[in-house]
């Protein structure tokens, strides 16, 4: 092969490369259109030393004990270790799907009023992180939430609520205070008939 032929082949290759670069298929639209979403909480799981859940009068307090999680309140109750770490992972990895409002004027319509569920994370260093969890969005797939340090309302994944529900569901029924929204009526307060528990 002569050097001219070699040169010609290189030239053809260069032209083809340019054409390919211009015509190659674009990245999928969805990937480009969706900007990366920020995490709801910028906290590492390893930094969390204790978790406190409050739903009305129902308090669940859990603290790290080596590699495991120990329930402090209600006393004498055990929860699957994976369930607690699963809840924590859900809370710490959920993304801000949407930012709904920057004012706090109408928290009630998002289920974020005083009756809302609260989660408090105690960290090895720094101030505790307090989160309020509200109602679900109209499609029922996500959850309105607020960080105490942030006045805005954001939409986060509802898996946080689902894992929280699993924690409350895993508590023995005897640990449920009666008269709360989740207390199974009748399971705590014995029905008295002439002073005798029925």
């Amino acid at each position, binding site marked *: 092969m002569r050097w001219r032929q070699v040169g010609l082949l290189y030239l053809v290759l260069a032209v083809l490369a340019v054409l390919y670069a211009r015509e190659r298929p674009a990245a999928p639209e969805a990937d480009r259109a969706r900007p990366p*979403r920020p995490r709801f909480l910028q906290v590492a799981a390893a930094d969390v030393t204790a978790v406190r859940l409050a739903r009305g009068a129902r308090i669940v307090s859990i603290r790290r004990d080596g590699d495991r999680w120990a329930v402090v309140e209600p006393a004498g109750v055990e*929860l*699957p270790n*994976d*369930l607690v*770490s*699963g809840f924590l992972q*859900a809370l710490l*990895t*959920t*993304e801000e*799907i949407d930012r709904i409002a920057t004012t706090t004027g109408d928290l009630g319509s998002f289920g974020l009023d005083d009756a809302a569920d609260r989660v408090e994370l105690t960290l090895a260093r720094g101030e505790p992180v307090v989160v309020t969890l509200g109602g679900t969005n109209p*499609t*029922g*797939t*996500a959850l309105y939430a607020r960080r105490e340090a942030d006045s805005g309302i954001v939409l*986060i*994944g*509802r*898996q*946080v*609520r*689902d*894992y929280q*529900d*699993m924690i409350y*569901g*895993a508590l023995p029924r005897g640990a449920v205070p009666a008269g709360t929204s989740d207390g*199974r*009526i*009748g*399971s705590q307060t014995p*029905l008295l*008939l*002439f002073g005798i528990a*029925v």
Partner: protein
Amino acid sequence: MRAHRPWSAVAALVVAALGVTSGVAGADVAPGDKIDASNVEKAKDLLSPGMVWCVKRGWPITVSETKRIEWPQAYKEATEKYAAQVKLTPDGLDVKNYVAGLPFPNLDPKDPQIAYKIMWNYSYNFLTTDDVDLRNFDADTGSIPQDGPMTVERHFLLDHFRRLFWTGRLFVDPKPEKPNPNGYRAQQGLYPILEPFDLKGVGALGNRYTDSGKQDDSWLYLPSLRRVRRLSTAQRSDALFGQDTDVDSYYGYSGHIAWMDWKYLGEREVLGSMHGEHFPVNWSKKVDWAFDDLWEKRKVYAVEGVSKLPQYAYSKRVIFVDKEGWVIPFTDIYDRSGELWKIWINNMSFRKSVPGNNAIQYPDEMGFIPSIVMVDLQLEHATKASLPSPRFPGEQGWYFNQGEKAGVTDDWFTVAALVAAGR
């Protein structure tokens, strides 16, 4: 007589009070109850968030008595014979010395490996031990309005879904393992698609290995391109053919146990459709993407699965595994943001036979699945499959452990057979 009157009044009050308490304790359900959007709160603790979403959308639930799921005799015997020798590796990824039956019949909630053992039990359940041929089934996919029928976008008719297990075999010779130089655990095929016309001949095929270090082989045949495409393991979570279903979600979970990190979320009671009375499926008249059948209280393990593959579509699955049947009533699936995305719902019917001409009479109860539904909660879209299609009267649909009699032969699970069927 008069002296007895105060006591009868007290007795009446006691009876009334007991009636009140029992009624209240039943923030619960009882056989005969009908659960719908108006009273779903009553059953909320017995359903997953995805299932509550479906009921609020119009899915009807009729509660029935809980019945036992009886294990096949051969499976029971194999469990008794071999379970003691089965060991789980410290990383939970491999089961050693497994021959047949349930690998881990005795589970301890305090065992740090319990989540893996539950999922390996699920993987080796008796739903199919040797082979299965599902014939003549169809699927509809479309949008689902509130309290209304599906707007069908595509209708699918499929010829066969077949699975052949190479290990853990109990009924068809050779057993308990076929001569297995490739180290297969199972082979699976879904082909050919008969309708819609533009997908005619399309099909999928896959091999799974006993060695958890080996990824599945997965192929997709596209007759329009005359190409066989190889699918990566992460693509097993992609919805195929415009449906809402993905290969890894079949049966509630069909991925390899070793490809997920599993967490044990606890035991609970849920409603599951395990002894459906209808065969073929009975779709709800009003909300026709929902099967209208019997649901019973089941004790289940709740397990979370997070894929190890970075490009996997889902962030996690929350899987409920029946403690007796080792099958899945439903699975909730979350997207990468943690938002509830999809649910897979099984309509199961453990029975020895189904109505139909010359239907096979099995000595044991087999796990027929008259229908499945997968719902995309975010898009308000669903895919429902009738297994088999009511368009084939008398078709029993599921052929369990029939081997070559049902056409489940080694050569059916080859790319050449996949291509030939698609032409």
